[in-house]
């Protein structure tokens, strides 16, 4: 799981970009603001992942699947 809670952009996207280098089929990313949620989603989709999102208490759990 990539925990990017509390981090401001572009750090969450950099963390995801680094993680995607391992080319696994699925990743879980947790963020706690809308901007990193949008940015991570946009980035993952540009890399060919489909992204689903669950929100709970202001935290977003993003599941990236290829």
């Amino acid at each position, binding site marked *: 799981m990539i925990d990017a*809670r*509390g*981090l*401001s*952009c*572009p*750090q969450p*996207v*950099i963390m995801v*970009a680094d993680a995607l280098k391992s080319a696994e089929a699925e990743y879980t990313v947790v963020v706690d*603001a*809308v*901007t990193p949620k*949008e940015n991570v989603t*946009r*980035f993952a*989709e*540009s890399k060919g992942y489909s992204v689903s999102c669950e929100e709970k208490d*202001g935290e977003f759990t993003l599941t990236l699947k290829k």
Partner: protein
Amino acid sequence: MTAKKDKIAIIIAGIVIGIIAAALAYFGNPKNMGFCIACFLRDTSGALGLHRAAPVQYIRPEIIGIVLGACGCAIAKKEFSPKGGSSPMTRFVLAFSAMVGCLMFLGCPFRMILRLAGGDLNALIGFVGFAVGICAGIVFLKKGFTLKRTYKLPLAEGFALPVIEIGIFVLLLAAPAFIFFSEEGAGPGAMHASIWLSLIAGVIVGGLAQRTRLCMVGGIRDTILFKETRLLLGFVAILVAALITNLVLGSISGTPFFNLGFDGQPVAYNDGLWNFLGLFLVGFACCLLGGCPLRQLVMSGEGNTDSAVVVVGLMVGAAFCHNFGLASSGEGPTANGKIAVIICIIIVAIIGCVNTLRKAE
């Protein structure tokens, strides 16, 4: 599809913001300044008496409007979220340094675009410095630079800066004797559109910037880091819209708002090295801060108190720049200003190193 919609949204927002910025100069703001965040925070600092440079003292309603517009939009969209605690003092120092760079160049990254749209080629050299500065910041980001995470804070904490902005607006309306206003003809501080027009313009810009996450630093940064051009499109849209508006307003009013060249540009000088280094410092510091001065204002409206600290750092920085003779003028940079820019570049580099190495621990 969503990505395409996002891009169209930011282009439209950029066009509206570009038109508003150029139109504000027509309605009385200084030329090529529309609403420069650095200049207007500096003017506000002066009006509050934090510095005594008589030509640049006025409470700028645009700044107040941007914070309140962003705040209103964030609340409406349930995105208002009080948080902070991500190295606030380091952010203060970075913001202070960024302002030293802004007042060396005579403008924030937003005014850099407006100066380009007015034909000021000195801003093109500034742009190169800005981009190189962002690249310097990216080197640290890629090596793991972090100011650590933020934490949730009480609601009142998030509203502190927006409420202070309302208080400053009341001071503008009431104009008590202890608030300083540049006298007619004294300089840029005396040039302004009407209060309510400026406020409404700020509210619209703040709202649009909040919705689209518009950021001058982010545009170049994301393009280099991720080949993500969305924010850059907003940047380009502002440039094109302001350029066209300048040409149209010039032909309507008979006063040129576009004047291509290096010399005789409004509130600018033509020393390439210091235009370059000024915006290099701004790009470097703002890249580590995670956003340009406009974006910091918007995030402070969203309840981000780290950004509120950055806004305070920018205002204090502006006051020091004028008190210590660091700020440039149309005549050119000052010796003190040159020394300050070099010192601040070193300080920002040290902050970059310290907060990159720490992660490797």
